[in-house]
């Protein structure tokens, strides 16, 4: 099986690839919650029971054809920093990373599929794809689930569906979520009505790392809340339809910025580049917000030779655990802030500074109340 260093050295498939709307939709993820019949859920079992279950099921998971040459690790073998790196890569949940004995994660070599053992449920099977592509993410996890169920007796009830530790996951056990980059909706102050509208249709909107996290870097996650009473394809089709709408709003907002607030836009992107390129101290929050502006600039062809995937890679590299893994030791917050700036300075060395839009007839002007003046 693959070593941790090898796993991390390679960018995941979703970081390299492009999918539908990948200028606005960063990733599509689908996860399934599954449990074994006859075993208490991880939260109500004793350590010995969790370890026993792990020992029994881990070989089954590792032998999946999808997991050939993949990565598999028992949490007792993983340092806190390494587990946090997996969280930052969206391969495991924060809740799972907080656990230890009796827990393990198995990841395929493309980092498209990860299976957490003994999370809140015995199994959390996750598929991740670039762009707006929940269908394809669901196909990944559906196939893995079908393969697993041929060897493992999953707890299933005819009326209630897949039985999960939390009744909010009952039925399909499926959570489909999409990560969106919405800088123009934030700049034009249209984001709150959009969030409200999405919430009204029964979808949840969250920040970068899920439940209870702030929407840093203008990144938002939208996911389904209902799991019972609808079939998987219906749930996915509904979310994709809603996301298409949000994507259109963001596109319109971008066009409006370009049309009506060119100077402000060029200024924001130029400042973002300048700070990332020359600063020596960068907090995580500041860096994420600046990278968001730079990404917007790249999407609008303001930053000539800057590839979006370079920015997306930086979004990972500047996060606390990635910094500490890179330094091979624990870093104080101050050390992290200076290390973070060192990385953005180095990565942007080969990038030409952002220019201006070609002269046009459009009126120039600043946004009445430009937020985000860090």
């Amino acid at each position, binding site marked *: 099986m693959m070593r941790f260093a090898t796993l991390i050295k390679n960018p995941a498939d979703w970081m390299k690839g492009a999918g539908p709307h990948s200028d606005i939709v960063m990733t599509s993820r689908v996860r399934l919650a599954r449990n074994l019949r006859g075993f208490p859920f991880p939260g109500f079992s004793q350590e010995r029971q969790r370890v026993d279950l792990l020992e029994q099921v881990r070989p089954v998971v590792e032998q999946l054809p999808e997991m050939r040459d993949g990565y598999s690790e028992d949490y007792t073998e993983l340092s806190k920093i390494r587990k946090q790196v997996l969280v930052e890569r969206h391969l495991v949940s924060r809740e799972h990373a907080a656990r230890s004995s009796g827990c393990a994660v198995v990841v395929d070599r493309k980092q498209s599929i990860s299976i957490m053992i003994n999370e809140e449920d015995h199994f959390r099977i996750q598929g991740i794809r670039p762009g707006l592509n929940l269908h394809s993410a669901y196909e990944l996890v559906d196939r893995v689930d079908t393969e697993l*169920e041929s060897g493992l007796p999953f707890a299933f009830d*005819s009326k209630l569906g897949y*039985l999960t530790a939390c009744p909010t996951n009952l039925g399909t056990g499926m959570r489909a979520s999409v990560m969106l980059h919405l800088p123009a909706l934030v700049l034009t102050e249209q984001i709150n009505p959009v969030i409200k509208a999405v919430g009204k249709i029964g979808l949840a909107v969250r920040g970068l790392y899920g439940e209870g996290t702030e929407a840093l870097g203008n990144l938002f996650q939208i996911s389904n809340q209902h799991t019972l009473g609808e079939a998987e394809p219906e749930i996915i089709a509904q979310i994709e339809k809603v996301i298409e709408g949000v994507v259109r709003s963001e596109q319109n907002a971008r066009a409006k910025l370009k049309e009506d607030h060119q100077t402000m836009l060029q200024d924001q992107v130029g400042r973002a580049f300048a700070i990332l390129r020359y600063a020596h101290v960068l907090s995580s929050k500041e860096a994420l917000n600046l990278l968001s502006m730079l990404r917007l600039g790249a999407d609008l062809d303001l930053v000539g030779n800057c590839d979006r995937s370079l920015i997306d890679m930086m979004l990972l590299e500047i996060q606390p655990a990635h910094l500490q893994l890179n330094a091979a030791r624990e870093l104080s917050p101050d050390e992290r802030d200076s290390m973070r700036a060192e990385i953005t300075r180095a990565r942007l060395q080969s990038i030409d500074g952002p220019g201006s839009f070609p002269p046009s007839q459009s009126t120039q002007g600043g946004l009445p109340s430009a937020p985000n003046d860090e």
Partner: protein
Amino acid sequence: MKCDVCENEASVFLTQIINGQMTTVNLCEGCSKAKGVTEETGFGLAEAFLSPAQRSEDSMEVVCNACGFTASQLKKIGRMGCPECYHSFREGLDGLLRNMHKGTRHVGKRPASVGGTAPQLLPRQRTAVVREETSSPPPPMPVPAPAQPSDVSKLRADLDLAVKEERYEDAAKLKAEIERLQPKAPSK
């Protein structure tokens, strides 16, 4: 019939099975609302009506036969102890689910081994002939009956106890017995 709380005519009749004992509460509409009976969870029921003495843990609480999880634990953490808990705590479950989800009946993917029929929740029903390749709709949930430990859940409880007490030889025997009664899904 009179309401148990006030003198009005009762219109809401609630029956709960607690450790195999039936408890019936009769309420008028006003009192049922005041006590939150028709509210989301329904799990607060025992707490709302049983006197503190009756509520004491040793005697009156609903407990999952398979894993020992209690109704008050469920209420506290909002999560189940094991898959069987959905059967043990089925009282009030529909109301809870209705508030949480689009419906109360699963219409999505089913494991191939289930073949679209045969409820899996009650182990004793699984000994019945499992029809294969049938397109008939899934049978309704069994009518709630007084909790009666099925053979398998009894064995599982014994197994848990054996593990807790570190009697591994007994545990192995019990495990084999459970597997015999409830074979794993056929592997393809």
